[in-house]
């Protein structure tokens, strides 16, 4: 994107060619993720989705805002809390539902489930269940882009807890040392499972920690999708221009428990309520209403659109077949002959 359009986006007030408010896309993107995950809860309760499921409800501004700074050529590597990242990246809701329902039509043919969404066509490289385990892989994707002189960058999402792992440290040093085109997105929701950040890190200013490796690092309000988009665009541009890795700490909060198994007994309800007042969706709606960018019809329209899409998606996903057990051993190794 050019500096001018970036500047306009920064003001967040430009009109798209068709005269609609571009913020509507952001709103739609976040609502879509929110409603998608609410369906996940239903499907989990009905026993159709199993295993570990980690919701990002409350954190939608991160996936939607960051994704605006990415091109289809960029790589994405993420965590088990990745429904939002996958949907924002453009993986159809139907393929993600199907994956969680364990269908062969799922984006990982039902072999991955909620934690392991993949879509190589969209350069979406998962869906990693080992905390910080995706970081070295992302560094390697970035290294390949760099060695080939390709314009792409690699965007890697991870949590605040991941920073305590050795794999974060080793990757941060490697990326800074080799000037890798890596956009490091730390989704700081203040908790690693039940452990608050202050009991996880001696230095809780995570951007400062990252900067100590000699890379540029900013802390951003992760509940304001426009601020997230702005920061992500700036960082992405700098990375593309050869500025080496950039680190963004997006301060956010998860409104739901860590996973479906988590009784969530370690957080003070008042704290949760306080954060819900900063709900990224209401926050954007209010701003758009304030300056006339949105009216009730508009909002209802978006809600309806999303509801219809998700109805269809669940319906289609349910129609997906199951991988026959005869196929169990397929994909352990690439069969001779298949292209690598």
């Amino acid at each position: 994107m050019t500096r001018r359009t970036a500047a306009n986006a920064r003001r967040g007030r430009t009109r798209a060619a068709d005269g609609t408010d571009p913020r509507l896309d952001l709103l739609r993107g976040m609502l879509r993720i929110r409603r998608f995950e609410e369906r996940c809860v239903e499907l989990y309760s009905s026993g159709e989705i199993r295993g570990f499921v980690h919701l990002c409800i409350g954190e939608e501004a991160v996936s939607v805002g960051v994704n605006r700074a990415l091109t289809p050529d960029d790589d994405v590597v993420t965590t088990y809390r990745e429904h939002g990242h996958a949907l924002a990246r453009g993986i159809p809701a139907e393929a993600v539902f199907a994956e969680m329902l364990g269908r062969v039509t799922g984006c990982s043919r039902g072999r991955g489930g909620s934690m392991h969404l993949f879509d190589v066509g969209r350069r979406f490289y998962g869906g990693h269940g080992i905390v910080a385990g995706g970081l070295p892989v992302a560094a390697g994707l970035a290294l390949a882009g760099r060695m080939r002189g390709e314009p792409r960058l690699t965007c890697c999402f991870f949590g605040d807890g991941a920073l305590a792992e050795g794999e974060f440290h080793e990757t941060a040093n490697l990326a800074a040392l080799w000037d890798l085109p890596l956009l490091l997105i730390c989704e700081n929701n203040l908790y690693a499972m039940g452990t608050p950040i202050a009991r996880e890190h001696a230095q809780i200013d995570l951007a400062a920690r990252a900067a100590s490796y000699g890379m540029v690092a900013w802390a951003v309000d992760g509940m304001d999708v426009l601020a997230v988009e702005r920061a992500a665009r700036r960082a992405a541009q700098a990375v593309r221009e050869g500025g080496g890795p950039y680190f963004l700490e997006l301060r956010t909060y998860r409104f739901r428990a860590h996973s479906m198994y988590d009784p969530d007994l370690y957080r003070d309800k008042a704290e949760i309520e306080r954060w819900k007042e900063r709900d990224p969706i209401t926050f954007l709606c209010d701003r758009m209403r304030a300056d006339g960018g949105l009216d009730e019809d508009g909002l209802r329209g978006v809600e309806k659109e999303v509801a219809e899409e998700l109805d269809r998606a669940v319906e289609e996903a349910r129609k997906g077949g199951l991988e026959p057990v005869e196929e169990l051993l397929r994909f352990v190794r690439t069969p001779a002959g298949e292209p690598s």
Partner: protein
Amino acid sequence: MTGVKAEPKPVTYREALREAMREALADDERVFLMGEDVGRYGGAFGVSLGLLDEFGPDRIRDTPLSESAFVGAGIGAAIAGLRPIVEVMTVNFSLLALDQILNNAATLLHMSGGQVAVPLVIRMTTGAGRQLAAQHSHSLEGWYAHIPGIRVLAPATLEDARHMLAPALADPDPVVIFEHGSLYNVSGTLPPGAGPVDLDSAAVRRPGSDVSLITYGGSLGKALDAADRLAADGVDAEVIDLRTLRPLDDATILGSVARTHRAVVVDEGWRTAGLSAELAARITEQGFYDLDAPVERVCAAEVPVPYARQLEEAALPQADGIVAAARRAVG
């Protein structure tokens, strides 16, 4: 009516583990628990729920996500004379601490010429069966059983969950305890007044004369089911629960095979170069002339455990496969 003993009230495997830790913490001030979310959260699987309130944050220590550091810290604290119980949330994450376990915990005593003992207990959840997919479904007990210098335990029953920890803590050297994720909610009653488990002996969970089903941990239930089904059509299976995966109790294993002349090993780990291979090899080495048929192995398929239910079920040992293997063995 008087003189009647009160019915022991039912407990879960989870509660039995917790009670064992509570007892250890209360009896020995050198004991403390450390790991990710063991405190405020109560443990990823709820095993340590309530212990923080009872024993405080100094002895029930939440750690950062740093498997290598907190396992290594457990080693150091043990060397210094404390008795740490380190919980590594699951075996899947223990790879990040494996250098500390192999190169330090298991090695320091010998490498120092007998000076540095490491009385450390490491607990971890293991196993598949809950649709957690490839990265959260490992059964790597066989890897740990390969390491000289450590003892490896796999409590499969309420009694063992309740009574293995005390002798593990009494062991002057490192002990790794594997808790199968499918067992935490298993509930039953504990025989009152049971004492510490003998950590050198396997247990015959079901005596039988036609074939020995040898297993441990999360597969014990499947083996017992298979034994019932075999009984229905006249095959009398003995079921051995290894309990201690290192060192293996050869006497009990070979004693059983000497009676039945046939053995089926059931292991949720992958087949190649796993624990099942060691059992098959030992039984054949020591019982070659007792065996009427080659040792059968029922293991996990050699595939990263898939999420989809039908695929996961097909990937893991099931009663059906055990029955079929036993039938092949009895020919």
